[in-house]
């Protein structure tokens, strides 16, 4: 009776299925759990590792990002002694957001007009009512003004800082350094020539060191400015150069320019007369002609005789002298009295082709080789370089070059005859002295010393002599091409003449006669004293010892001017 039912004995099929399923499910669940655990463990391990990594190598929370080195927004420009000539500082700017104003606009406009009187209150009021988002009220504001504007407590007036170019020495060497526009791009001088180097982040941390010496520059500028004011000249230029390395120690162009506010200067003031202006050299050119003649073997001694009549008629033109000889004269005398007639004859003997070759080697026929981009194109007779032009070029007429050409030419003539391009960068490891090219022979260079010293001791340049410093040089007074009554007076000098080291060129544009010069306005009267004053100031700084007993070998020239002295 109690027979087990089939149902009781045999498991119900659904139940059997259940057991198998449960196992399967359990296995799957284990798998999933394991997977989930692995994922979690992996994430945690990742986080832990990251934390450990950060703890070991990472930044800490209190770290201040940012300033670790001092790189200016634009590179500095230094002089040769390391004095800053151009720097970038943070300047204050005052701006106006018309939309953010909350106070009474009329009151604010009145207050602003009182603080910044360059605009009246009506203009300020109109600016506040306009729909423009932002106005600059003042860039490069003074701290006192910023404080006063801040005291107004108006959120619509914003005070900010922006990098600004400052030239601490103001007008000193302004034409060399140049200036930048309001956005900080160089537009003149070194600022323009080296704009990329000054602005690129990789290179701007290193300042550019110029060959300019600010003390020497100041002396030259002061003396030139004094002469320019005394003789009412419209402009002036001056250059001091090391003849052996070609470094320019000072270069100035007057009237003065303040690069901090270059826009306010006149175009006349922004014009660089030393490298951009071309002028007829006049008699300062004569030493080149004599040197060319000596180098070509035309002149064998300073005692060589030329016939110097009162006036010379050649090729339908008359050449005159300011101190006519009217007799036979020697080369030394021609130089001493700056005779056009004598020099023209020497130039004619040198000949056109040789003259051109020499001028080309000296770099006189091409724009001056200098880092600046303001370079003047020289004016030459060009294709009309005939015998007459050769004669006039011989005494410096009919050829116009920059004062820097002249300085470079004198450096070439007196450093032993090697041409080296002038440079504005300090010569050092990164900027070595360039290999020169020979223009004149060493002997010519040596002999010219005495000849130019003679001009200062006996001739037209007596006022240029700085006692003890053995200045030698040549005066030059050229008439302006467009108006023959206006002069450009120049003096190109070298010192100390017994061992030449520095060349100094000074030029006055349209000087007028004064009572002190007895009505004269030639170079010997107005520009020569500039040389004397400047040399006696700068020579001690340059390490030139004054010595009244030293002279170049004057025995080469003095015998040939004896006759002139007796007259």
């Amino acid at each position, binding site marked *: 009776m109690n027979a087990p039912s089939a149902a009781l004995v045999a498991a119900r099929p659904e139940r059997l299925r259940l057991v198998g399923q449960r196992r399967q499910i359990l296995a799957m669940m284990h798998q999933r759990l394991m997977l989930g655990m692995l994922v979690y463990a992996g994430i945690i391990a990742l986080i832990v590792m990251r934390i450990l990594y950060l703890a070991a190598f990472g930044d800490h929370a209190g770290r201040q990002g940012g300033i670790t080195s001092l790189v200016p927004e634009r590179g500095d420009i230094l002089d040769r002694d390391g004095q800053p000539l151009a720097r970038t500082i943070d300047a204050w700017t005052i701006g106006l957001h018309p939309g953010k104003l909350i106070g009474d606009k009329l009151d604010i406009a009145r207050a602003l007009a009182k603080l910044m009187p360059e605009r009246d209150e009506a203009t300020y009021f109109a600016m506040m009512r306009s729909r423009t988002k932002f106005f600059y009220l003042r860039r490069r504001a003074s701290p006192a003004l910023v404080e006063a504007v801040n005291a107004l407590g108006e959120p619509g007036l914003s005070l900010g800082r922006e990098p600004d170019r400052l030239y601490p*020495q103001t007008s000193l060497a302004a034409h060399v350094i140049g200036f930048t526009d309001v956005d900080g791009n160089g537009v003149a001088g070194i600022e323009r020539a080296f704009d990329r180097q000054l602005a690129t982040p990789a290179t701007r941390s290193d300042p550019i060191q110029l060959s300019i010496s600010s003390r020497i520059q100041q002396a030259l500028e002061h003396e030139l400015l004094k002469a320019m004011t005394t003789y009412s000249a419209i402009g002036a230029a001056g250059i001091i150069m090391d003849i052996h390395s070609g470094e320019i120690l000072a270069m100035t162009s007057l009237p003065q320019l303040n690069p901090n506010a270059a826009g306010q200067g006149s175009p006349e003031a922004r014009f660089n007369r030393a490298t951009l202006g071309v002028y007829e050299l006049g008699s300062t050119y004569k030493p080149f002609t004599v040197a060319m003649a000596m180098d070509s073997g035309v002149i064998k001694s300073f005692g060589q005789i030329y016939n110097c009549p009162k006036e010379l008629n050649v090729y339908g033109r008359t050449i005159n002298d300011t101190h006519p000889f009217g007799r036979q004269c020697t080369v030394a005398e021609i130089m001493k009295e700056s005779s056009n007639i004598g020099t023209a004859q020497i130039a004619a003997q040198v000949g056109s082709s040789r003259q051109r070759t020499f001028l080309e080697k000296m770099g006189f026929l091409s724009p001056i080789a200098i880092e600046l981009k303001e370079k003047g194109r020289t004016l030459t007779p060009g294709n009309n370089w005939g015998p007459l032009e050769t004669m006039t070029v011989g005494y410096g007429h009919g050829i116009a070059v920059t004062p820097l050409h002249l300085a470079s030419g004198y450096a070439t003539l007196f450093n032993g005859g090697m041409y080296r391009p002038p440079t504005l960068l300090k010569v050092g490891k990164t900027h070595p002295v360039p290999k020169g090219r020979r223009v004149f022979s060493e002997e010519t260079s040596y002999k010219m010393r005495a000849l130019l010293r003679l001009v200062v001791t006996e001739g037209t340049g007596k006022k240029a002599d700085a006692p003890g410093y053995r200045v030698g040089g040549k005066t030059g007074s050229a008439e302006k091409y467009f108006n023959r009554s206006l002069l450009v007076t120049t003096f190109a000098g070298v010192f100390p003449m017994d061992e030449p080291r520095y060349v100094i060129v000074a030029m006055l544009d349209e000087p007028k006669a004064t009572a002190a010069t007895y009505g004269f306005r030639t170079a010997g009267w107005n520009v020569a004293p500039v040389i004397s004053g400047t040399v006696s100031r700068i020579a001690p700084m340059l390490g030139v010892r004054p010595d009244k007993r030293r002279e170049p070998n004057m025995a080469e020239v003095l015998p040939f001017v004896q006759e002139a002295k007796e007259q």
Partner: protein
Amino acid sequence: MSGSSFRSVFMVASCAGAALGCYLVSLRVASERAALEEIETEIVMAQRDIRLLQTEIGTRGRLAQLERWNVKVLALSAPAADQFLEGGFALARLARPAQPDALEAPVVLAAAPADAPKPTVRGLPGKGSGADDRGVAARDLLRVASFKTEPRPSSSMTINLTNQSGPPKPGMATRSSAAPSKKLASADPTPKSVRSARPARPADPLAPLPAPAKAAKESGKTQ
């Protein structure tokens, strides 16, 4: 049971301790580095301030401004060629105190007449200069001698005589005695010292007085 279970605990504890130690080291390093960076930042900020101040002082003391002050107030000018010295010797010559030597010089002269012009000393007490200083007394001697022997050559002769008679050796003596007398003559203050003695005897006509100095100079030169 206990050993094995504690071993695991020790393992965990030592691992945790080591990890903690490592972490502490790294924390310490991080904090040190932070401090260093702070100092670096401070240095940079200080450099920026220095630069700013340098710029300001350079702008205020620019060369053009100094030149203006010089033109208006100081009026300094470039040194002339003569103001430069040749070297150390020239400088030392400038630094030598010249005046005290000259004041001492009359003493040398006073020593000279000690043996020779005794007769003139005998004449002196009548005048009674009353000077207790030996140097002054010697000067008085000299003056009286020149005064008494009115003509100049005689006075110069007395000095010559004194010069020669002073030192014992003749050859060396002339040179050594000539030197001080030359110094006496060339130095400026000697006439001054004579003049200073003038108020002692205002009545004395002193016109020929400079003569001995001149004569001494001549004698110095000739010797």
